């Protein structure tokens, strides 16, 4: 059993890293081992509407959001000047503070950042 938290900190301009994270998430979901997924730093920009031109990437995001649930670090939103309301509502990203992030990390055996 894999107890993994995936952190996505890459911007949409580094789509290959975001796709890698989401593909791993999809594989884990397919094997009924859902990861926790948190977007922080530049990764918060991935949650904006229209962040990716490629619809496949958006589909990966929606699948992760629907099946695993995704979190977004509030401090990163603030640092990047993004209001929560600017995020794609269909993704339903749950805001999380640094304290909450620390708590979430402590619940997992491993954390990997993309």
């Amino acid at each position: 059993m894999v107890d993994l938290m995936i952190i996505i900190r890459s911007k949409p301009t580094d789509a290959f890293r975001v796709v890698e994270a989401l593909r791993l998430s999809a594989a884990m979901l397919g094997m009924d081992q859902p990861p926790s997924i948190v977007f922080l730093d530049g990764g918060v920009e991935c949650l904006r509407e229209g962040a990716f031109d490629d619809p496949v990437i958006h589909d990966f995001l929606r699948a992760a959001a629907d099946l695993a649930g995704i979190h977004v670090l509030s401090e990163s939103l603030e640092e990047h000047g993004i209001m929560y309301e600017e995020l794609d509502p269909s993704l339903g990203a749950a805001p999380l503070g640094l304290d909450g992030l620390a708590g979430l990390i402590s619940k997992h055996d491993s954390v990997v950042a993309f």
Partner: protein
Amino acid sequence: MVLFVASTESRATQETVIGLATASLDRGHDVSVFFNERSVRLLKVGTKDEEFKGLVERGARLLACRTSAMGLGLKSLEDLVGGAEMSSLGELVDLMGDSDRVLFVG
């Protein structure tokens, strides 16, 4: 068992993977290296064939994500260095569960 996961095709990733895998084998660990996304190109025949073959001869597994390989035009094992295996993200998840330590090299 130690599992290394590579993602990029940079020379740094290549050297780090080979170096860490070698050092881990020297310490008596079972080693698997999963090449994901663009890093599959590192396994292409004609790159570091002898060094990768050396790892295989010492018992390391070199696994290429089949989906990534196909996307990069590496369609069969003949396109990869000898001893490399075609694999999947599903197997990666299994390996992650079975490994004592996992390192995403990048």
